[in-house]
Each structure stands twice: as structure tokens, then as C-alpha cells.
């Protein structure tokens, strides 16, 4: 019994042991299974996630080299490929108050100390403004366009809150050169005023902005023109100056200058009155420079058949207005003499003979009744004389005053296009700022006969060889042209001492290639101009200095052995002078 009990107890203990072992084994297996299940689940989730990423997620952007080098805004170049406007990644100085975390002061030194140190690096900065920005809670630009050496000096201050983000900006390596042609890009990256505004679409188009856009401008010629205009402007204490060089055969604008100019690199300062250019936006009464146009219209219409015919020069009254000359050139003048001495009286008589309709038609064919044809967004509308009837015909007095450039106000660009037609064989073409290849030169429209143009070349050359334009006679360049000094209107009439002095020229006259227009706004009588205000003394010398500088660059070589043949009309002219 006892033995049985003992054996039973032993058996039950063994069974329990086996049972415990069994249970713990199962528990262990279950745990392993759980862990395994966990791993399988994780793997499964990972695979699913990988698959999801592979299917749905876009690949990290791998920009190609061409894309990385594509400028944010296309380059504008001159006709020889020299960059005039470029995208330029420059450093800016940005103050980041969160650079050292949200807590505590973001600056190591005091704002005043840093502002003083920054003032040493950027002398044009404002101390109070810097301190205000450095104390502010929000980040702001302390300075834009920081040079690398300046950035290094700021870095040496040891302030982590001063950061240098690199930003794409617009840069004009030539400074204010051709500023009116190019315009500028404002802080928001929008092109303003000039070709920056016209070409906006093209400059931002990813497909086209990689290649520079060539303009018709030649930077060297532009530089020479601006230099000489500035020289002339300072010499005569003039208010402003403007100039234009136009290819007579294509209408390409090789240079266009309006002084004083603005600096497109400082777009924050750019929006002021200097932004409007005097060549295409403002209209002026250009005075005697219109006389050759009148004479050409008369020759073309067959009104002047004999250049030797003499006209009386006595002042005459018409419609309560007396037409007179600035000087007395003798009792009678023929047409070449009238041009050489710039006689209003004779030109008015020729215009009267020609008639209002014919003169008006010629002026309209030369585009004088509409805005100048050029790509620039701002183009001035001419002051076109009102007609006496519904058809717009001019009165006799209007015809006469228009014939010598009064009562009609146009831009210098109008005048340049008209002079191009006058000398190039009689074809008027629209002016353009795009570089044209010879295949795409516009056909233009014929305004004068080729024979008239040939005669005008002789007459214009005579004016410079021995008339009012003598001071523009650059040796060897066969310059021809006409002076014009018009009194500015104001105060209910014309002001005697406020002149617009213009010189319209073309060279070389034996085969004209370029028209040069130079204009001074209110030149003063100074010692360098022999105490005179008129174009013969202040603008003509500018042309004389410009032409030898630009001629060789444009392929016109001076040659004193060549000239347009004026032997058939030179005997008609007696010696003398006038304005």
C-alpha cells in the first residue's frame, strides 16, 4: 500500500514534470513562431513598401548637365556676340534669426557691433537700417550682390546667422551702356523698358534661352557714340543728348544712345525719368534737318528740274506769320545754296510750289504720321499737323513750316529712317533692333527715285564739304548731312535760347552705309562752341569725332582719294555761310 502510494506519487510527479516540459516547449515554440511571424510581417511590409515606392514614387530628379547650365534668363548679346545682359548667380547677404535655434539670441555679438563691422565692408549701407534688421524677428536681406571677397570678410565675422544664398540675378557687364535698348529686370524678375521687356517670353523659354539673343547693336560703336555724345553734352552744358546710328540698307540700329542714362544693374534705382529715351519716345521739332526731305520730294515730283533757278530770299508774310532766315545770304539763292546756307524762305517757296498734298504724301510714306517702327515698347507719337479739311490736307502755312521742320514733331528715329531712304537709293525700311541676316532684310517701300537719291547724296555732301555742316567733315569719310537748330516751344511761343540742335548725317556719301543722328537738348553757348548755340557749332563736331571712331569698326575705311562727284553742281554755289 505504502509502496503503491509511493510509486503512485512518483508517477504523478513524473507526469507533472513531463507536462511542464511539454507546456514550456509549446510556449517556446509559440514564441519563436511569434518572432518569426513578426519578421515575416516586417519583411512583407517592407517588400510592399518597396513595391509601392517603386511604382508610385517619382525618382529623385537627376538634372542633365545641359539643364544645370541653362541660365534662368537667356543672354542678350550684341551683333558680335558680346554679352550685354547675362544671368549671374551672385551672393546675397541674408540674416537668418533661426540659425542658432529658436531659443536665445541668434547673434554672438551685439547687433550694433555687427552693423558697425558690416558698414566697414559695405560703406554705402545704412547703420540704423542694419541695426533694425539685425534686431528684427524675421529674416531679411542685408545686402544684395555681394562680391566673393566681401562675402569672405563677412564670413570672417563668425556669425552663423549671416548667410550667403546664391541667387540668379541679371547682370549687365557693360554697365549703363545701351541701357535704354536693354532696359532692366526688376526685383521680381520681370523685364522692363527695353528689349528685356520685349523679349521676356523668349528669354524665359527653356527651349530657347540656352542660346544668346543677338541684337543689332554693336557694343563698340555704342560705346563710341555714348562717349562722344557725353563729351559734347558736357562741353555745351546741354541738358541731354541723344544719338542713333542706323544701317541704311537694312534698317538695323547699330547704336542708340540717350544721355544721361541709368544703370540697369541698380534696378532698385532704375525707375526714374532717365528711363525714357529721347530717340524713340520723345518727339521734337527737328528744324532744318527736314529741308533735304522737302527738296528731295520736290526733285522727285519734277518741281525742281533746274538747280540753277534762283529764288528770292526776302522774308515774306503768310497767314500773319513771317517766314525769314537767320542771316542774310544775298537777294537770291538757288536750291543747292539754299541747302548749304539753310534758307527757310527758299525751302518754303519750293514747298509751296510742290504743294501740300505731295509733301504730306512724302512725309506719310516716310512714316512721319505714325509711331516709329522699332521693337522698343515705348514709342512716341509724332505731333502731326492737323489738316484744314476732312481729308487732312495741310494749309499753305503748314506746308511751308513743315518744309523746314517746324510745326511737325517727330522722334530722332523717324528722322534717321527718313535719311536712310534719302541716301540709300530711295527705299524706306523699318528700323529694327534685331540682327538681320541678309536673306531677311525687309524689302521696304520706295519713297524716292534712285536718281533723286543720287542727287541728294551730292547735295548733302556739299552741305558738309562747304556749308553749315563743315565742322562735321571727318577727313576721308565723305560725310554728308544737314544741321538743324530748332527753338523749343514753351511759354506760348518759341524760346530763343532753348534749342534742339540736331545733325543728321550719312557716310560714306559715295556709297552710303550708315546714318548718324546726333542731338543736343538745350545746348548753351560756351567757349568751345565759339559762343554759338546752333547745331553747326555743337553737334556737327560730335559727328566729326564719332565717324572716324566707328567707321573702321564698321568696315568703312577712310580714303581721301574718293568722294561723291559733285562737280556738276558745285559751280552753282557761291561761297558763303549761314545756319
Amino acid at each position, binding site marked *: 500500500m505504502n509502496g503503491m502510494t509511493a510509486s503512485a506519487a512518483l508517477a504523478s510527479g513524473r507526469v507533472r514534470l513531463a507536462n511542464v516540459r511539454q507546456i514550456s516547449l509549446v510556449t517556446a515554440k509559440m514564441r519563436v513562431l511569434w518572432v518569426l511571424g513578426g519578421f515575416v510581417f516586417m519583411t512583407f511590409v517592407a517588400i510592399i513598401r518597396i513595391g509601392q515606392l517603386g511604382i508610385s514614387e517619382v525618382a529623385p530628379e*537627376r538634372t542633365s548637365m545641359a539643364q544645370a547650365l541653362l541660365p534662368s534668363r537667356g543672354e542678350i548679346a550684341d551683333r558680335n556676340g558680346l554679352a550685354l545682359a*547675362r544671368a549671374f548667380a551672385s551672393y546675397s547677404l541674408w540674416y537668418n534669426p533661426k540659425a542658432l535655434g529658436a531659443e536665445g539670441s541668434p547673434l554672438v555679438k551685439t547687433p550694433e557691433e555687427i552693423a558697425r563691422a558690416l558698414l566697414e565692408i559695405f560703406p554705402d549701407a545704412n547703420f540704423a537700417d542694419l541695426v533694425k534688421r539685425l534686431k528684427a524677428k524675421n529674416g531679411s536681406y542685408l545686402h544684395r550682390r555681394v562680391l566673393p571677397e566681401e562675402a569672405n570678410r563677412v564670413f570672417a565675422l563668425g556669425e552663423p546667422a549671416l548667410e550667403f544664398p546664391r541667387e540668379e540675378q541679371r547682370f549687365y557687364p557693360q554697365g549703363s551702356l545701351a541701357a535704354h535698348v536693354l532696359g532692366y529686370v526688376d526685383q521680381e524678375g520681370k523685364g522692363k523698358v527695353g528689349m528685356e521687356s520685349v523679349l521676356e517670353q523668349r528669354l524665359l523659354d527653356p527651349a530657347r534661352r540656352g542660346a544668346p539673343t543677338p541684337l543689332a547693336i554693336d557694343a563698340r560703336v555704342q*560705346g563710341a557714340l*555714348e562717349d562722344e555724345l557725353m563729351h559734347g553734352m558736357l562741353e555745351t552744358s546741354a541738358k541731354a543728348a541723344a544719338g542713333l546710328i542706323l544701317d541704311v540698307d537694312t534698317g538695323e540700329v547699330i547704336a542708340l544712345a540717350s544721355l544721361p542714362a541709368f544703370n540697369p544693374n541698380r534696378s532698385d534705382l532704375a525707375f526714374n525719368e532717365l528711363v525714357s529715351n529721347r530717340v524713340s519716345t520723345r518727339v521734337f521739332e527737328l528744324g532744318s534737318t527736314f529741308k533735304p526731305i522737302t527738296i528731295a520730294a520736290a526733285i522727285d515730283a519734277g518741281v525742281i528740274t533746274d538747280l540753277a533757278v534762283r529764288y528770292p530770299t526776302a522774308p515774306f508774310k503768310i497767314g500773319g506769320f513771317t517766314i525769314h532766315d537767320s542771316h542774310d545770304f544775298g537777294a537770291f539763292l538757288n536750291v543747292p545754296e539754299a541747302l548749304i546756307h539753310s534758307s527757310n524762305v527758299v525751302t518754303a517757296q519750293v514747298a509751296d510750289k510742290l504743294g501740300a498734298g505731295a509733301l504730306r504724301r512724302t512725309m506719310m510714306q516716310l512714316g512721319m504720321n505714325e509711331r516709329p517702327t522699332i521693337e522698343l515698347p515705348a514709342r512716341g507719337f509724332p505731333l502731326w499737323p492737323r489738316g484744314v479739311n476732312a481729308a487732312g490736307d495741310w494749309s499753305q502755312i503748314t506746308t511751308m513750316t513743315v518744309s523746314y521742320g517746324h510745326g511737325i514733331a517727330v522722334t530722332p528715329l523717324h528722322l534717321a529712317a527718313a535719311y536712310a531712304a534719302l541716301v540709300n537709293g530711295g527705299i524706306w525700311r523699318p528700323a529694327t533692333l534685331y540682327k538681320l541676316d541678309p536673306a531677311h532684310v525687309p524689302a521696304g517701300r520706295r519713297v524716292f527715285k534712285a536718281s533723286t537719291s543720287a542727287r541728294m547724296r551730292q547735295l548733302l555732301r556739299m552741305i558738309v564739304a562747304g556749308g553749315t555742316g563743315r565742322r562735321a567733315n571727318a*577727313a576721308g569719310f565723305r560725310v554728308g548731312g544737314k544741321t538743324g537748330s530748332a527753338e523749343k516751344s514753351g511759354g506760348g511761343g518759341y524760346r530763343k535760347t532753348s534749342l534742339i540742335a540736331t545733325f543728321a548725317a550719312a557716310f560714306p556719301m559715295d556709297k552710303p552705309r550708315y546714318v548718324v543722328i546726333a542731338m543736343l537738348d538745350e545746348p548753351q553757348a560756351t567757349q568751345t562752341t565759339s559762343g554759338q548755340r546752333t547745331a553747326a557749332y555743337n553737334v556737327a563736331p560730335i559727328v566729326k569725332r564719332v565717324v*572716324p571712331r566707328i567707321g573702321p569698326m564698321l568696315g568703312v*575705311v577712310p580714303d581721301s582719294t574718293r568722294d561723291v562727284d559733285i562737280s556738276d553742281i558745285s559751280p552753282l554755289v557761291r561761297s558763303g555761310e549761314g545756319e
Partner: protein
Amino acid sequence: MITKAQSFRSIGWMALLAVCIALVMVLAFRVNALRSQVKRTEDKIIALRLEQSYLQLEFQTRASQQQLRDWNTLEFGYAAPTAGQYLENERQLAQFARPDAPGAPVPIRVASLDDTVAANAAFPALVSPLTGKPAAAEAPAGEVGEGEAAPRDHGAAKAALGARLARVSALPGADDAAEPAARPAKDKPARALAAAAKPKVLADAKSAGMKPARMATETRSYK
């Protein structure tokens, strides 16, 4: 039941698979390494290009028209060249030549057989305005007068000179020197040659005072 050979085979396959996977991985790693190397190089090129354009821009800014003008006014003072400084062609250059002043050293003259210099400097042959053919071929031999500046065909002249010099030593007689023009005219093949060279012969003869012996050698050579 799996035999021993079968198990070996399956282990072999597994090993092969493992080796293949290892090789593919090595290849993939290398490809990726190369790819990132290319990327790095591209980045470097981009950085260098940007640097280059930055330097170009700096150069253009420092050499801007206004800067050049300032330098010119302050330092150099260059002015635009005048009409007198341009020469259009050799003729204008030749206008600068002056006749020798009295007492000037006599230019050294060197005898030479080389005619290439003269031949190379030859002016283009005159062309008849009527027919468009070279004037030398146009003009009949008899019409070329003594005083006329007949166009010189330098090729022909050179050939004639060579022929002449080759025959100088072989010439025996000077009998037919009296009619220098008549002989070559009869000679058909030498006709063109004669037309080109004859005026020269006559001019030479005149200036040399009609030396019979020289004339003889010259006329003989045309045969």
C-alpha cells in the same frame, strides 16, 4: 528518396546560383560606383563651367567699353586712325617711294636666273572687254607695236627665257640678225610665244643699241 548524387547536384546548383548572385551584385555595385563617378564628374564640369562663366563675366566687366574709355583718356590716349594711315593696295604703298636723292648709295643689284619672284608678283593678265578672253591671245602678233605696253604672260616669258638660256651656248651663227620680227612670224608653233615675247625683244634691242650678236641669240631661240 534523395540519393547522394542528387543532393550533390542540388548543392552544386545552389553554389552556382550563389556565385551568380554574387557576380551580379559585384557588377551592380561597380555600375553604380561608375554612375556616381560620372555624376560627380558632371557636377565638377558644371561647377567649372559656372566658374568659367563667372570669370568671363568679370573679365567683360573689367574690360567694358566705359572702363576702356577711362583707361584711354587717362593712360593711353589712343586716337582713331586718320585717312592717311590706311593703304588700300600696293599702288598706294608705291606712292610713298621717292626717287633717290643725289649721293644716295647705289642699290645693290644681284644677277639671278630665278624668275619666280617676278612671275609670282605678276599682275593679272588684261582681259579684252569685248570678248572676255585674255588680251594676249586676242591681239594678232603683227599688231603689237613697239611702244605699246603689251601684257606680259609671265609663264610664257619664263618658258621663253629657259629655252633661250638653254640654247645660248649651242648657237653658231649670227647671220639672220637683220630680221628679228620676220622669222618668228613665219614659224607657226612659236607664234603665240613670239607674240608674248617680241615687244620685250624689241625693247631690249633698242636699249642695247641693236647689238647684232645678242639679237641673233634671241631670234634664234624661237625656232
